[in-house]
């Protein structure tokens, strides 16, 4: 399937808002929050006020993209990936329960917290009756959404499908992940992430959306994807080799590796393995731009699309440079907790 256009709302502005501006974060808890564009033109104020962040950025991201690339054409399917949806609202509702006991509670937080609220709001904003679904398979959700879109396109290649993802930083996931020793104890500059050698990573959030179809002949193409649930590093090589063989790709055809290095010395060896497997490719990282969160692979895809289009990477994301081309195939590989592995193959 070909990508007709993409948009993201992330901690970085250079992808779609302000070129050349790469933000280097330095926050007490290593949290990278989204830079939200002005959303008033896309969502009425009275609705914006009610929306939690995940619903707001997830919905806006898709509406802005539609405005930019397809004007009035409504998507033929809406497929959203999110590990957790509106967590802030979920915790706010739990707080109401704990605080107010048996008293009657206000339902807004409850309704906003359901992960399908993003896809629902996108459909609702257009009165769009098309196929509408939400995948919540933790960090696999985005690749699951790609598989879902591929299925629909194979049935009808003229379909234009909206695929989106969203994750927000909330007290819920930050505290829970902190209790799991997921984040670095010391505050660092985000762009220094790949130079740290300690336990833990930095925390991020973001929304992504793209239109894909099966008949366009120009533009970046998603040619393969896969997921693997396994904590054994020895399984990675065979899994990726199988995927490349399935799509008749030689390892030399992979010219870019976009790898999820997170600066966590306990888990980064998986990425070293993939670098060693394809020694001729340039290697880039992306978590020093966006931080770590379950569906961050969607932003890795957006950055890979940017790289193919501009031909010029953000210098701080370069990990290994063998050549100056940014052509051929990009292999995007990310894992979550060293257990959930995802891969996407992108061709220019």
């Amino acid at each position, binding site marked *: 399937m070909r990508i007709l256009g993409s948009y993201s709302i992330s901690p970085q502005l250079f992808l779609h808002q302000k070129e050349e501006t790469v933000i280097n974060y330095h926050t007490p808890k290593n949290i990278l929050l989204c830079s939200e564009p002005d959303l008033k033109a896309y969502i009425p104020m009275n609705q914006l006020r009610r929306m939690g962040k995940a619903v707001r950025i997830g919905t806006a991201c898709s509406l802005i993209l539609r405005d930019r690339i397809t004007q009035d054409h409504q998507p033929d399917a809406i497929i959203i990936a999110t590990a957790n949806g509106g967590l802030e609202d979920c915790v706010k509702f739990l707080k109401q329960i704990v605080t107010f006991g048996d008293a009657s509670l206000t339902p807004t937080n409850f309704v906003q917290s359901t992960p399908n609220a993003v896809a629902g*709001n996108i459909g609702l904003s257009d009165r769009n009756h098309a*196929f509408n679904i939400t995948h919540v398979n933790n960090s696999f959700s985005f690749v699951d959404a790609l598989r879902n879109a591929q299925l629909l396109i194979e049935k009808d290649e003229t379909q234009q499908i909206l695929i989106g993802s969203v994750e927000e930083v909330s007290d819920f996931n930050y505290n829970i992940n902190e209790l799991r020793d997921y984040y670095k104890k010391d505050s660092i500059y985000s762009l220094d992430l790949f130079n740290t050698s300690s336990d833990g990573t930095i925390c991020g959030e973001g929304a992504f959306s793209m239109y894909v179809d099966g008949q366009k002949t120009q533009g970046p193409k998603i040619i393969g994807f896969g997921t693997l649930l396994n904590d054994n590093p020895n399984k990675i090589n065979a899994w990726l080799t199988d995927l490349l063989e399935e799509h008749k790709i030689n390892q030399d055809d992979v010219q870019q590796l976009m790898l999820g290095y997170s600066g966590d010395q306990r888990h980064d060896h998986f990425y070293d393995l993939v670098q060693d497997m394809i020694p001729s490719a340039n290697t880039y990282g992306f978590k020093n731009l966006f931080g770590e969160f379950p569906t961050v692979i969607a932003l890795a895809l957006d950055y890979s699309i940017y790289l193919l289009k501009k031909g010029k990477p953000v210098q701080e994301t370069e990990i290994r440079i063998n050549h100056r081309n940014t052509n051929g195939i990009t292999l995007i590989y990310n894992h979550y907790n060293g257990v959930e592995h995802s891969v996407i193959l992108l061709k220019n």
Partner: protein
Amino acid sequence: MEKKLDSSANEVFVAGIGIITSIGNDLDTCRQHLTSGQSGLSAFDNIDQIEGIGDIVTGQIKSSTAQLAKVLGNLPNTYTRTDLLAIYAFQEAIKDAGLSEQDLTSKRTAFLSACTVGGMSKSRNLYHDSIANSNPTEYLNSYSASVHLHKIVIEHGITGPTSVINTACSSSANAILLGGELIRNGQVDLAIVGGVDALSEFTVRGFNSLGIMSDVLCQPFDQNRKGLNLGEGAAFLVLSKQKPSIEKHGQLLGWANVNDSFHNSSLNEDGSGILRCLTAALDCAQLSSKDITSINAHGTATPNNDLAEITALAQLFSDHPVDFYSTKSFTGHTLGAAGAIEAVFSLLALNYEEVYPSLHISTPLTKAHLTPNLEYKKARQKAIMSNSFGFNGNCTTLIFGQ
């Protein structure tokens, strides 16, 4: 992904079923309840000492979480009620289908589940961990909606496509729909599909805050219905490209996913969104409304749902009557599991050629010549529709037949 072309690839057989609900933890017991009109709804019995659920009517499975963990082989405390119900139904389904280890580990076997609550069944623990700076509970890694699926994938060495769907109350109907698509498309030979949800303080208080919970036995399709009762359960179906050697459960003939696109938490009462969904499912199954012999309605017993649904049904079945009922009057609304549980009941009705009653109706809600079925009866079944509608307009219809 490798794709096999086959001219007969349109057929999707149901090769196995596993189910656990408040009316039974196997097919026979569920059917006994459905045929005898014995509801699983009762006053909430706080076997797990969950805080905050209070004095309400629920479709509760009468085993404590500790008992379920014991039955499944002394599983550790970190397995939530959601995980345990899913594992129970999954094991029954693969046993019923006679799946081998080779079947389960094949790349051409998908496992698609659905869940809305996940480990939030431990609502208070979740709240504690989300605000704590220290002393985490033992459930830190248990909260995600995907946890049950990942536990099962690792336990059985599943390598094929997986996903977890959350489209609220239509979640597991969409897992079944995607399994049907994967098989029809030739991408897999087998798909284990369904969903799970456990009763939780989060959902009880959530639905209560919306004012759509009944404090008495729910009365789907009664003119004076007061709202829904929540239930819990899990069901998985094994879908197969190959005709099973003993054909016992029927076929998935068609499906549709349509967005009502009207409101976040209510359906368009003119029935137009639902009607689109019903019509699209008939198109997918290449059937007409005359082929549908009965309907397992979504029938939550909320004023809004039942009115929207009967209005749509009356438009589709405008020139001939059709039997319809809501088995939520037996199980309560099991949220993410409801689509799969009701798919299983539809298959039972199909195979035993029978129509189940909608319980607790004093004054039937009628529209044109449509009136809910009040008594158990035998009737020839050709194709059965099973409806599931969720918050945010997520409507899904499945059609089963021989």
